[in-house]
């Protein structure tokens, strides 16, 4: 282990920084964080004004169950996504087997399917009247549900499986990017020192990829924590369920904000613990793109194992649900074909691209500022700016409305008082509000992955560039960004697909007569008629696939292959 060393390293040292330019980075980071943190701070603010103290009732009744179920779900999904994500990422990066190139991007496909859609599809497939049980009854001659046992899909286990199947791509993507960025010589050295491939994987490859994997896993866990659609449909009682209950049924928004805040703390503690546990590690790699990855050539049975490992999540996470959607879409085509799809598709694509770009720019700004100013304060800023992901979308949407509408009304009053004109609502209920919400929500994705990748670029790169007279900005553009290309594309891709699927905040914040594909599907799904929206659901999936393929090509190309 020569290039990637684990050692205490303070990062960039101050003398490197020309004071004035670096200050600009610091100020822009602080300003961005202040804006991006507004919605989360609004929710914290709301938490101070509950209608009544919700906790005694919760503690007396459902809180213990909410907590246990939440932890069970998170642990289950965490394990599932880690196993699938790491195994597949390792296989497609390091092994040569038939279909490898296809699986490289194919494994991302389940990501395009919203969790509540996959839940709905599997329920219709596996419930009593679904094709699976009908076939079983025909085959075995059973008459009704009391005569045989069939696993209940609407259960904690079912929810774990559904969520895990569509979220593992987070781990897969980030792990694969990390594996691709590792120098193959590390692996070779480990093998030459007598470690088996497996032991090298656990002792060298995983520890080096850990920051990236941790980012992926924390995204998975936050998304799981905030999922409402699936757990609601499956009647799995997580904390989010309690939150919505408090908000919608008890009309206690403040109490709900308190539960959201509690969940936020939970996430912050988790993330802090993970970081604390590797506080003394600092990894740098002077990456050498010309050194190609040499994939294992394997015996036929082993190749088949690789195929099976990669096929499992793809089949159950994508092919089965997409085929079912296709079937329903065909079946209900006349009732569901509607020209508004085209506009909805444009809306989805436009919002998602805009949000992906914004989060990427802000993510890079923050992560690079942190590299320039590796202080405690910057770390806190980074964490603060990423909290939007740790809140249910609907709660965050209210957090977005508070400052935006507040600003609009403040400006309006001002203009009325001084100029006697009303400016009305400038930001609320516009596409801006939605892109803002997406940015706040998904910044964690881009900032986190850019940060973890930046950490691996050795400071000597900066030093070299700076000593040649480049400003920090020039250094970023000429040195870091080209090296980060794969990571940047990955981050943009994840944010893009996430935005395509985003539902709760979109519903609340959108302008009049405005639908994205996700909201259009939801109208029907929420009325227990998913069949009628199978077609638009399928379009979400297809619209998600195209950028997945395009960007994946670039990610793979970011490393020259043998």
């Amino acid at each position: 282990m020569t290039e990637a060393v684990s050692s205490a390293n303070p990062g960039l040292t101050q003398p490197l920084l020309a004071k004035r330019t670096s200050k600009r980075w610091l100020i822009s980071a602080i300003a961005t964080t202040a804006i991006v943190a507004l919605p989360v701070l609004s929710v914290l603010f709301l938490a101070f004004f509950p209608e009544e103290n919700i906790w005694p009732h919760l503690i007396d009744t459902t809180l213990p169950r909410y907590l246990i179920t939440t932890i069970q779900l998170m642990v289950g999904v965490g394990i599932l996504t880690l196993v699938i994500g790491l195994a597949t990422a390792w296989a497609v990066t390091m092994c040569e087997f038939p279909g490898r190139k296809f699986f490289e991007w194919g494994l991302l496909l389940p990501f395009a399917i919203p969790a509540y859609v996959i839940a709905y599809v599997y329920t219709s497939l596996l419930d009593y009247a679904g094709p699976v049980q009908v076939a079983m009854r025909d085959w075995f001659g059973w008459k009704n549900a009391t005569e045989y046992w069939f696993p209940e899909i609407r259960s904690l286990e079912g929810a774990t499986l559904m969520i895990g199947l569509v979220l593992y791509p987070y781990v897969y993507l980030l792990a694969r990017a990390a594996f691709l960025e590792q120098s193959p010589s590390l692996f070779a050295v480990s093998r030459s020192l007598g470690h088996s491939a497996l032991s090298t994987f656990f002792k060298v490859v995983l520890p080096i990829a850990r920051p990236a994997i941790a980012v992926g896993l924390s995204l998975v866990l936050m998304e799981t924590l905030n999922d409402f659609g699936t757990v609601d449909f499956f009647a799995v009682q997580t904390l989010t369920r309690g939150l919505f209950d408090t908000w919608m049924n008890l009309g206690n928004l403040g109490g709900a904000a308190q539960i959201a805040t509690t969940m936020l703390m939970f996430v912050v503690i988790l993330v802090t613990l993970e970081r604390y546990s590797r506080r003394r590690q600092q990894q740098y790699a002077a990456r050498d793109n010309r050194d190609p990855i040499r994939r294992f050539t394997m015996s036929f049975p082993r190749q088949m194992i690789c195929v099976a490992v990669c096929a499992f999540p793809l089949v159950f996470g994508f092919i089965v649900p997409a085929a079912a959607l296709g079937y329903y879409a065909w079946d209900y085509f006349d009732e569901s074909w509607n020209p508004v799809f085209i506009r909805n598709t444009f809306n989805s694509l436009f919002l998602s691209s805009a949000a992906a770009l914004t989060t990427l720019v802000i993510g890079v700004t923050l992560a690079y500022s942190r590299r320039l100013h590796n202080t405690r304060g910057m770390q806190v800023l980074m964490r603060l700016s990423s909290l939007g992901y740790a809140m249910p979308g609907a709660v965050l949407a209210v957090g977005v409305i508070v400052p935006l509408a507040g600003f609009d009304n403040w400006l309006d009053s001002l203009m009325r008082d001084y100029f006697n004109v009303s400016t009305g609502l400038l930001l609320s209920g516009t596409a801006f509000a939605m892109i803002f919400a997406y940015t706040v929500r998904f910044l964690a994705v881009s900032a986190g992955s850019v940060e973890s990748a930046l950490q691996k670029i050795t400071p000597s790169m900066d030093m070299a560039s700076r000593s040649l007279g480049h400003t920090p900005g020039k250094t970023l553009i000429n040195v870091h960004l080209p090296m980060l290309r794969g990571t940047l594309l990955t981050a943009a891709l994840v944010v893009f697909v996430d935005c395509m699927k985003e539902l709760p905040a979109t519903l609340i914040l959108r302008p009049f007569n405005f639908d994205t594909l996700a909201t259009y599907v939801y109208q029907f799904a929420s009325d227990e008629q998913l069949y009628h929206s199978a077609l638009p659901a399928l379009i979400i999936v297809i619209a998600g696939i195209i950028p997945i393929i395009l960007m994946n090509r670039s990610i793979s190309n970011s490393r020259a292959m043998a």
Partner: protein
Amino acid sequence: MRMKLAATAAMALAALPLSANADGEVNIYSYRQAYLLEPLLNAFTEETGIDTNVVFAKQGLAERLEREGRNSPADVVMTVDISRINELVEKDLVASVDTDTLHKNIPENLRHPEGKWYALTTRGRLIFASKERVKEGEITSYEQLADDKWEGRICTRSGKHPYNIALFSSMIAHHGEAETAKWLEGLKDNLARKPQGGDRDQIKAIAEGVCDLSIGNSYYYGNMLKDDKQRPIAEQVNLVFPNADGRGTHVNISGISLTKSAPNKDNAIKLMEFLSSPEAQRIYAEANTEYPANPDVKPSGLVAEWGDIHPDDLSLQEIANNREAAVKLVDRVDYDG
């Protein structure tokens, strides 16, 4: 190419506040799915020339309205469930409307005393019973759902769903909290499985033999009958109007309110009047098999076949008032557990 795409989308977006019609527009925040409103709103635009703009969401619109304050573009809020509607009144977000047309169209028990909301449709919360395994007349009231004979034979959706909460609230209004707690425990003990899914799923469960009775809103059953693929499932159950011979069947409403800040107040009132008119009420009745709030309009043929509904005359306000108690009761009884 990608630039072009984005540019087109941006233009589509910019053109969004669709060029205002000469006759103006009316802006709607709706807790009901936009596709359900579409035929009604189209008919409205056709008749009056007024354009309609809709935002649909299941939650958060009241908060949006509240925060947008006097500058909110919303003219009316359309809601389902009396407690939801009541929340708008309690938050002081809606204004009084009193016109002769509305008073003539909507009976007194289906509107707010000061006109802060008007019901547009009602829906009964019914019991569905297996044709095969439950004899007609074997169950006639909500109270009987707690009888031991139904042990392991009942399916419902989550006790926390607003429709169930409203039913439980009405039980509290009639029997008091202690009695209702006992009843709810009895009902819970009779459940065949943990509460899950929606109202249609419970009817499916009866068809599957998982249970013999379920609770559900009338229009879900109606809409299943209208769907060729779901009809065979719905046909396996009988529907029961609970407490028909006593105090009447529990009904909930969908309704409409004028916002305090309505920028297009006149158009909004026109919309409210239109939606209560026989013409619109017929669309409601046909399209979603709900009961029209306007007594002059008969339910759709399909719904009429089920027989008359005798609604509980408990005031809707009373149901809203008991909501919190009902929610907490569901937690205490651990109904969903």
